[in-house]
């Protein structure tokens, strides 16, 4: 292998690809070739580096210079300046507070420096399609240790002692789950990886599969050994084509290197993995629905008990773990349970990957120790609001979760604390909401999702969520009554108690939790026909402040309904009857003369 002077790691996660990573890489390659540097510079496409809001991203080593928001033009300049002449190109460097340029933010900026990476340890560092890079980062060492030096029971005990809990939402102790499957009678057992990540706002599983597929293969093989299974399935959503492609390639490599197949590492243990692709049904993330889907049926949940550990796929004992949970397994086996426990809290040890989205400056993936406060997570790591507007709440756990108001941001993030607040950690999606977000609208939004995704098996979930959605729709249209609010509460609790699976049992949570903290907003909608956040279209009007309007005509020109009138250089007026409330005018006004009012004008 020729020695290289520079290595460029370029993020080829889904988000960076969608914002033009490929054209940046092509420009790099073209320029490097033009200067005949291809022997001296190596380009590696890695998995997600986490900072999705500033992609496409790359890091140039040995210096570790972090370039962001790249374009093909930027790439060309960086080759000519940085690689050829050794001069760092400042305009594409990371900018911290007050525009301060930070060439190596990994050390200085909390978004990077506060992270502890276990499940995402290889993301953005290795080429996911190169098994040797995975091995170089201690990959498959844990598999060797488990198969050669440990009995299955010892593997299970190590996971139990580590306190690892399921990262898919429920937080069930992983070691215990393995033990159930191990102890279940039967010669044939199955190990399934649940990669049907569907919670809105959560994308750590996609990133892990795309950026480090071998860790899932290694972990599944260890789990298979522990529970006594010889066959594994990864159930991936069809919406994740890049993940499917990379995992397929990784499976091939693992076979070639003898980490999968017959008599792995000469241990006498055989294991194989197949991919199963979903077809667009959120409920399939529920483990029994997922099993039905693998069996080629409609993805409807089964009655529990019997649990999958007793009677799962094809009626055989089956263990199901989520992607992020599995990604923690190899390091725990290799380093021991106490190593994992140095982070996190007593009941929620280790780290958790969170996906920051919504009204927060640094969106993307972060892995932090459990027990960190929401405030640290949202303000220090997330960088707070991108617009300077007041952050109002954070929505966690997607459609099964709830909102947590800003007053409670000093709560430590662990399974128990968030549940007490009426929210859940869930799969780790955190959607930050600010003063422009209406809580009734947020609740309605999630209910619409549940109505769509309910599989239809249980009446309370199928019909009940629909009625709840209709009531919320009424309220946001200004037609709700105070009785409606009461009905929502009652109905929500009934659906929770009487649904079969997790989807129905948690579906009312977004409504119940917004009612818990923001009942005043609901009341404003029904009593005053006003939307305090000025989001609900039927409850607002756009108005022009005549003292600020200079008559530039920008708004009148952009209005698709042609409902703004006025002479040039004189204040304009909006015809409220004709206004379709699209908001185009507010965006183009440079004088801040247009605003929203609620309740709507007659």
């Amino acid at each position, binding site marked *: 292998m020729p020695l290289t002077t520079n290595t460029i790691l370029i993020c080829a996660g889904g988000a960076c690809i969608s914002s033009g990573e490929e054209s940046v890489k092509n420009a790099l390659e073209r320029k490097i070739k033009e200067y005949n540097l291809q022997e001296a510079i190596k380009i590696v496409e890695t998995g997600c580096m986490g900072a999705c809001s500033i992609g496409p991203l790359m890091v140039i080593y040995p210096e570790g210079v972090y370039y962001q928001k790249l374009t093909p033009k930027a790439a060309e300049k960086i080759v000519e300046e940085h690689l050829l002449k050794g001069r760092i190109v400042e305009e594409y460097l990371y900018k911290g507070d007050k525009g301060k340029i930070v060439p190596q933010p990994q050390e200085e900026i909390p978004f990077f420096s506060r992270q502890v990476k276990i499940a995402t340890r290889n993301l953005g560092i290795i080429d996911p399609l190169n098994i040797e890079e995975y091995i170089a980062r201690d990959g498959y060492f844990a598999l060797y240790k488990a198969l050669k030096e440990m009995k299955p029971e010892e593997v299970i005990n190590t996971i139990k002692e580590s306190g690892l809990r399921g990262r898919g939402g429920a937080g069930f102790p992983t070691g215990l789950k393995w033990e159930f499957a191990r102890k279940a009678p039967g010669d044939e057992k199955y190990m399934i990886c649940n990669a049907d990540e569907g919670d809105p706002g*959560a*994308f750590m599983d996609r990133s892990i599969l795309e950026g480090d597929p071998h860790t899932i293969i290694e972990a599944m093989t260890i789990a298979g050994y522990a529970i006594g299974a010889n066959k594994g399935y990864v159930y991936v959503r069809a919406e994740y084509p890049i993940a499917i492609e990379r995992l397929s390639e990784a499976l091939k490599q693992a076979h070639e290197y003898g980490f999968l197949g017959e008599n792995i590492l000469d241990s006498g243990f055989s294991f194989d993995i197949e991919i199963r692709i979903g077809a*667009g*049904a959120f409920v399939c993330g529920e483990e029994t629905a997922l099993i039905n889907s693998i069996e080629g*049926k409609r993805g409807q949940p089964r009655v529990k008990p019997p649990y999958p550990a007793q009677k799962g796929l094809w009626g055989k004992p089956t263990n199901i773990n989520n992607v992020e949970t599995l990604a923690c397994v190899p390091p725990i086996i290799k380093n021991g349970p106490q190593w994992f426990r140095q982070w996190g809290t007593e009941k929620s040890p280790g780290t958790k990957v969170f996906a920051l989205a*919504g009204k927060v400056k640094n969106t993307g993936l972060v892995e932090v120790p459990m027990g960190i406060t929401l405030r640290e997570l949202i303000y220090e790591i997330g960088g707070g609001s991108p617009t300077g507007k007041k952050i109002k709440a954070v929505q966690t756990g997607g459609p099964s979760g709830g909102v947590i108001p800003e007053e409670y941001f000093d709560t430590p993030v662990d399974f128990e604390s968030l549940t007490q607040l009426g929210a859940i950690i869930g799969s780790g999606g955190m959607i930050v909401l600010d003063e422009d977000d209406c809580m009734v609208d947020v609740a309605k939004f999630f209910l619409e999702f549940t109505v769509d995704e309910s599989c239809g098996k249980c009446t309370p979930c199928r019909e009940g969520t629909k009625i709840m959605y209709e009531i919320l729709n009424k309220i946001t249209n200004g037609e709700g009554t105070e009785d409606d609010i009461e009905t929502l509460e009652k109905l929500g609790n009934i659906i929770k108690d009487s649904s079969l699976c997790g989807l129905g049992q948690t579906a009312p949570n977004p409504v119940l939790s917004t009612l818990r903290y923001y009942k005043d907003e609901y009341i404003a909608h029904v009593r005053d026909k006003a939307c305090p956040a000025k989001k609900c279209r039927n409850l607002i009007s756009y108005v022009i402040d005549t003292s600020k309007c200079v008559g530039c005509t920008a708004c009148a020109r952009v209005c698709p309904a042609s409902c703004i009138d006025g002479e040039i250089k004189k204040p304009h007026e909006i015809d409220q009857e004709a206004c379709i409330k699209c908001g185009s005018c507010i965006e183009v006004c440079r004088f801040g003369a247009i605003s929203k009012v609620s309740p709507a004008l007659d």
Partner: protein
Amino acid sequence: MINLDEIKKIVHQAKNETLEEQDILIYTLHKIQDKIPNNFIPEEAAEVVSQELKIPLSKVYEVLTFYTMFSTKQRGKYVIRVCTSLPCHVVNGREIIQAIKDELKIDFGQTTEDGLFTLEETGCLGLCGVSPVIMINQEYYGDLTPEKVRNILRKIKGGAKI
């Protein structure tokens, strides 16, 4: 037109690829739908699957109609899936949807007259860091604005490959 022999071949291939025969229905349907230019499973193809896999036709349809990614109706050459989840919604996803509807003059579940585009809703695509996001066939497009999405659609209309 749909070549039934080719569909038979796909089913046979799937049979050889998988270790357990019972679970190949969804897998096979994916493979077939990928091959059919209009991204759907016509009745003839469903019948072939039913015969070859010895699964009653009603069962095949039970599955076909449950999963949103399968269609029993002809779709456009490009299926646009717009993420309608909260992370996209709070960053003006609504305007992206409106821009697409205005540009193509179709609603969700409809196909343009020229048979080029079908518009569908999808759950979270997991690219919330660059929301709002859409997917056209197998490609992701993120950080969208109404302007950007119009440009993408116009380019495809103009014959650009995606």
